[in-house]
């Protein structure tokens, strides 16, 4: 294995650059170094002006998502040695506006997320804090997979539908809606249906499946969306029945 590897990093400084450019940096290549370690080496040793987001370094916080050699990835879990001898291209996540260098703006997602009410909705109780809601292990299994989402935005960067239909609610928001719809303690499924069963909701998804491939946490957003399509379609058919039969 060579001692160094070249990182081709996308740079964009809105105050001086008209468009993003690529800049090359040579960083040490170590077996245990992730792409994020390379970026931090650049920031600390070579060029303090490089901007990127990161926090936990262990795939929990979801802030270091970038495009590595064309694929959306968490840079803390993507190892330089896998790209040896390089070079490795590091760009901001696709489908989002770039604020600076590798930092993207996720305002669009932050606007969409609360629309699906990603919290426990209770209609018949005074509040979750006042009572204990028991749940069996099978009931937990129903939604646990979707609760692993860390909002890293890799699924939005991977989704070709989101690329051409910016109004699409998107994989993570729908998977998080399902995380609560499938929770035995939740009673908000019919409220979420007004957002999910729309042309910008699940029906915009054409089941490309890239979201599930890109997810670093094993969530299956494509599966969540397909499952919800069946729920929404069944509800539509039932709406044609006479009122008493629904």
């Amino acid at each position, binding site marked *: 294995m060579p001692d160094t590897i070249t990182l081709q990093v996308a740079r964009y400084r809105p105050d001086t650059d008209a468009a993003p450019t690529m800049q090359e940096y040579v960083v040490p290549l170590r077996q245990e170094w992730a792409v994020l370690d390379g970026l931090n080496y650049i920031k600390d040793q070579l060029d303090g002006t490089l901007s990127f987001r990161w926090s936990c370094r262990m795939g929990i916080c979801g802030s270091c998502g970038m495009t590595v050699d064309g694929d959306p990835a968490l840079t803390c879990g993507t190892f330089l040695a896998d790209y040896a001898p390089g070079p490795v291209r590091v760009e901001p996540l696709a489908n989002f506006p770039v604020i600076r260098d590798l930092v993207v703006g996720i305002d669009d997602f932050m606007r969409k997320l609360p629309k699906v009410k990603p919290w426990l909705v209770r209609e018949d109780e005074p509040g979750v804090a006042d009572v204990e809601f028991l749940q069996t292990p099978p009931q937990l299994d129903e939604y646990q997979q979707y609760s692993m989402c860390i909002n890293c935005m890799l699924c939005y960067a991977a989704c*070709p539908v989101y690329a*051409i239909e910016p109004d699409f609610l998107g994989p993570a928001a729908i998977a998080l809606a399902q995380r609560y719809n499938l929770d035995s303690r939740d009673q908000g499924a019919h409220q979420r249906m007004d*957002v999910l*069963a729309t*042309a910008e909701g699940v029906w915009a998804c*054409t089941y490309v499946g890239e979201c599930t491939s890109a997810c670093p946490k094993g969530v299956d957003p494509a599966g969540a969306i397909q499952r919800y*399509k069946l729920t929404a379609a069944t509800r539509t058919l039932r709406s044609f029945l006479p009122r008493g039969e629904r």
Partner: protein
Amino acid sequence: MARRSSSEAIGWLLFSAGGMVSALLVPVLLLLFGVVFPLGLLAPPEHAHLSAVLRHPFIRIALFVLCMLSLLHWAHRFRYTLHDGLQLKQLNKLINLLCYGGVVAGSSWAAFVLFG
């Protein structure tokens, strides 16, 4: 807020139904009439017998529904392969015309062969 969409739901149900009937019936028909009977692995039915089966209105309707739903499934999937996969959004109208026009043409041909 966007309205709930019934037409998308019905379209998706037809697409799903097409996928299911194609997956269940087409391989069986292809295996029987494309491999097993021509290779003589099973004795093929008499022509008169098969002809009588095909004359039954229920069989004709079932075959017509199979053809139509399979074509619908293809159209829906192929449309989105072009639209999303190849990012040909600007050719949307032409793609829709080709795909769903193909369904109408193919279904009409199937109706002509089966009922004509």
